[in-house]
């Protein structure tokens, strides 16, 4: 059961990982997922479900926040990547765009983009070419190239962050909460660009998103996380039609409006039903 745009080859394989922060706080309790080459995979769930932690476990940014993968395996193209540092991951083609943009505020937009090419060794000409490619996807960035990133709008900062990641010539982008704090129209624009990048440049995406509605429209496959566990997964088209997803994540119900008190977490209800 595969959607269009998906191939069989699995790039990233996360197998039953457990993550502990500060040696005591258990955040992920056995998360497994697979990211296929050329697909857009969505990681859905509410606040604190463990989406960001999962992404950081993959990109190995966890260690700088005193987090640790204590169980399970993560492999990329069949290679174990748990002991690598973020720089090695970027060289392998996996780069994370962090939640809340994280632009370098005092650098110009263009300098921000150029930092994305930090690990590349293929020469100035190639990097310049990719800079033009980024500008062709984000024409607004070209207009603002000389502005300090800190003074650009939220949407432009999100574009800068994605463009910066593109400059590393990634195979897979881990995109964390691209819709955060943006107007609905901009969210559409950003997701459309993500889709174009996926189709035209062949970049695979693993995106964490609270905005289930948008994410399921653009993704090929989805995983739903709750309290550090995957509670459901499936092709995006199927998830969109699933009555539980509709009720708890899309806010649609056959029984009309419901009182908030009746809405309990998906997992608790599922436990009762099964």
């Amino acid at each position, binding site marked *: 059961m595969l959607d269009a745009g998906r191939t069989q080859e699995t790039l990233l394989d996360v197998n039953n990982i457990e993550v502990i922060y500060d040696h005591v706080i258990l955040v992920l309790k056995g998360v497994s997922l697979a990211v296929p080459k050329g697909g857009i995979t969505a990681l859905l769930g509410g606040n604190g479900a463990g989406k960001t932690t999962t992404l950081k476990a993959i*990109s190995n*940014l966890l260690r*700088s926040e*005193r987090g640790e993968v204590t169980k399970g395996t993560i492999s990329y193209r069949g290679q174990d990547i748990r002991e690598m*540092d*973020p*720089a090695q*991951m*970027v*060289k392998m083609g996996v*780069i*994370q*765009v*962090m939640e809340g943009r*994280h*632009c*370098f*505020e*005092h*650098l110009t937009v263009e*300098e*921000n983009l*150029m*930092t*994305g*090419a*930090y*690990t590349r060794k293929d020469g100035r000409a190639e990097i310049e070419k990719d800079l033009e490619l980024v500008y062709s996807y984000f024409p607004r960035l070209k207009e603002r190239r000389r502005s*300090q990133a*800190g*003074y650009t*709008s*939220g949407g432009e900062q999100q574009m800068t*962050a994605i463009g*910066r*990641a593109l400059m*590393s010539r990634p195979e897979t982008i881990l995109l964390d909460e691209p819709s955060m704090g943006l107007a609905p129209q901009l969210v559409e624009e950003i997701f459309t660009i993500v889709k174009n990048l996926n189709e035209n440049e062949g970049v695979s995406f693993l995106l964490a998103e609270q905005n289930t509605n948008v994410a399921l429209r653009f993704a090929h496959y989805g995983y739903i996380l709750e309290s550090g566990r995957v509670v459901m997964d499936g092709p995006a088209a199927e998830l969109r039609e699933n009555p539980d997803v509709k009720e708890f994540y899309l806010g649609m119900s056959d029984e009309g409006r419901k009182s908030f008190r009746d809405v309990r977490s998906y997992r608790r209800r599922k436990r009762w039903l099964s």
Partner: protein
Amino acid sequence: MEILGSIFIDPFVDMVAAPDFLLQVLWEGLVSGVLYALIALGFVLIFRSSRIFNFAQGIMVVFAALTLVGLHAAGLPAWVAFIATLGVMFLLAVGIERVVLRPLVNQPDIILFMATIGITLFLVGGGEIIFGGENKVMISDELGIPDGSLEFNPWDGFLLIEARDVTVVFGAVVMVAALLAFLNYSRMGRAIRALGDDHQAALSVGISLTTIWVLVWFLAGIIALMTGIAWGSRAGVSFALEIIALKALPVLMLGGLESITGAIVGGIAIGLLEKLFEIYWGQPLLGGSTEAWFAYVLALVVLLFRPQGLFGEKIIERV
């Protein structure tokens, strides 16, 4: 009234009456200001990229100067000794990163600050064991720093400028320009600035903390060596030089901890102001020796009214 006159009127009358002497005072101030600025630059570089307040910058100046003189005394030609000292500063940077910074990564700032005090003590002890504690003479002649002085006669007056000081100022300007060009236009320089802005994001694009840390400590080491040569050729090489490096603290208060422009402007401003104050206000009114405390009082005033310093980075915050 007489007091007010001697504070607000007499000094300026003196300045206008003897413009050549004023020029001399300004020049002396500029030379020491440039050196303060250099030391402050070393602080700023390390602080920007790692949020570490490097207490050891002062002793690094002494250590670099001692190494240079020591290697020359051991028989190396001056310029070979200079290159070798750069090598030693590089090894020091690598060592500090490996032994001190890497194990302490992610610790609170105050712990890293304490660690730099540890580095200071280590370098003081190490320097004394290896090179001895007695004063030494900087090998300025051997390095080709010109001796002698130039005389000018502006407004029929007399102005004496030491050729050595001209070299110092010129060298400092060249070095600062090179440093700015490096930071603004090179890939590594961009990475250093990026790291100063956002640690996590820098990690996420694959900038390696350890490489950058070694680099900034090495740059701070080069700056320390230059400052050591400059101060050493004026005042001799001894551990007392470290005290001079403390002058960089008020410079940082004035200029802001993160600003390279601030370090330069702050350093020169403090150099100029403390000389002017000493000559025109300190000596006639307070009995002299105001240079020892003037900079700190000035820094205190700045802290009261503008705690981020005159050039401290504005925190860009969008709502």
